[in-house]
């Protein structure tokens, strides 16, 4: 069973404020989900290289070139608050 303290620690790491409802709901759900996930522990995987992408591909790199980007106003238009060409954030005490 995941404790409330553990849950709060994960929420802190994930930068998520949880509602009262979620704090009440998650511990039991997480415990049953994690118990189900732990089935994989019994599969022998010694010396097996983890697979992080499913097809055989090679890393490709491109040149780091400067290119003009003319849509900065469209990007800035999405800002919750802006000041000229800058993103504005509230003061943090």
């Amino acid at each position, binding site marked *: 069973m995941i404790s409330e303290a553990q849950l709060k620690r994960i929420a802190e790491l994930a930068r998520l404020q949880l509602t009262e409802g979620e704090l009440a709901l998650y511990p039991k759900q997480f415990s049953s989900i994690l118990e189900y996930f732990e089935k994989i522990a019994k599969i022998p995987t010694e010396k097996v290289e983890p697979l*992080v992408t*499913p097809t055989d591909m090679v890393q490709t790199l491109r040149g780091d070139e400067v290119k003009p980007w003319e*849509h900065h106003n469209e990007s800035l238009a*999405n800002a919750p608050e802006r000041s000229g060409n800058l993103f504005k954030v509230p003061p943090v005490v």
Partner: protein
Amino acid sequence: MEDIYFTTITSLRDRIRRGDIKAREVIEKYLGRAQKLNQRLNAFISLNQEGALAQADKIDQMVASGKDPGPLAGVPMAIKDMLCTRGLKTTAASRILYNYVPPYSATVVERLEAAGAITLGKANQDEFAMGSSSENSFFGVVKNPWDENYVPGGSSGGTAAAVAAGMSVAGIGTDTGGSIRQPAHFCGVVGVKPTYGRVSRYGIIAFASSLDQAGPMTRTIKDSAEMMEVICGWDKMDATTAKVQVPKWSTQLSSNLKGIKIGLPKEYYSSAFAPDTQKVIDQALAVVREAGAQIVEVSIPLTEFGVPIYYLVAASEASSNLARYDGVRFGHRADFSKKPAEDLAEFYSRSRGEGFGTEVKRRIMLGTYALSSGYYDAYYRKACQVRRLLRDQFKKVFTECDALLTPVASTPAFKIGERIADPLQMYMNDIYTTSTNLVGIPGLSVPGGMSSEGLPIGVQITAAHFCEEKMLNVGFAIEQALGIWKKVPNGL
């Protein structure tokens, strides 16, 4: 006039290209119908009223002046709201992006539009594509056009419902663990997830980058092939796209399956399916046998671990991908005017806590836990190791057969609200679809029959990496023999 609503891409674009019908007329009618039916089905988050008509006029001008308007000329598309569309709101069905207007379009959208397709609107879905029922949307639940008490499946439920209801001719979904194939199955349409690396992910809101793949949702296999020819192929903007030739699938379809070996993984068939699902599978097997295919039993012993591996990998990648939503540069920001944040962590936590829905938070939390110090080896790393073993088993199976035929899910659509309270039960629905993404192979769902309640049932076909042709042919044989795709929902 021939019905323009329940038509195919090939038929509609031929009529538009010949000048038999104007693209503007088609789009005006579709916008009207989509708007009207959306009040019942909630399949679209937004409609592209002005943009779609402007695109249609461009097609009509090209036809009038004898220019080639492209292979998808004038065809309306429901684009899942995971794909960025320049100047058109893109939300991922989340409060955290409720007002986001992208400054660029996804490569998939650019390619579709360059081929003449019209972006009709942005389709509803589960928030950030996390869900199997399209009930997890900030913009409300999507309804199944065959029976509005049922879910359309998910996460691409809006696209599936729009195509099934004749609100669009075709559309784009994304599939991370079955999110194209399962709603296609629930709504009676064709849905194809191409091989990982076939389709550029540039401009598609990231959920789990090693699993996500966009694909077509259409009325027929041929229509899906037509769209794949347009959207597949290497893209300099996505380093994971493959430099593999894109075949002309639509011109090579054949329902003759002589020489094709179809595998039935015994682990998929070891548990009982709903009786109607079993009937549809039996009928599909009879069809492919009749078409000349040989049926062989194969084994994928790790099948039962597909769901745990999938949810560990997907949640871990999601917790990392969704870290970008911080309330600074775009999207939802909590109101700090009355109660300022004590520190930067609180600034992020409050905005994210308000912006994400319960299922998205649940997965970010699970992923954070699986990646955290002390648990990484037991969860994330272990899941990636078993993922390799699973891929090896699939590779071996495809030396014994050309394609696999299985159900998409063990039941047809379920009722709205029926499973939402138990996330683990919802995750376990995905047992037949998640392995496809973990190993990166292509998969599709093709309509195969109807349940006694009148709900569609699809058949899933998968094949080896980059072998879409065989998979499409098996689907084509089933579609041609059974003709289920011609059925349309009553009362729409």
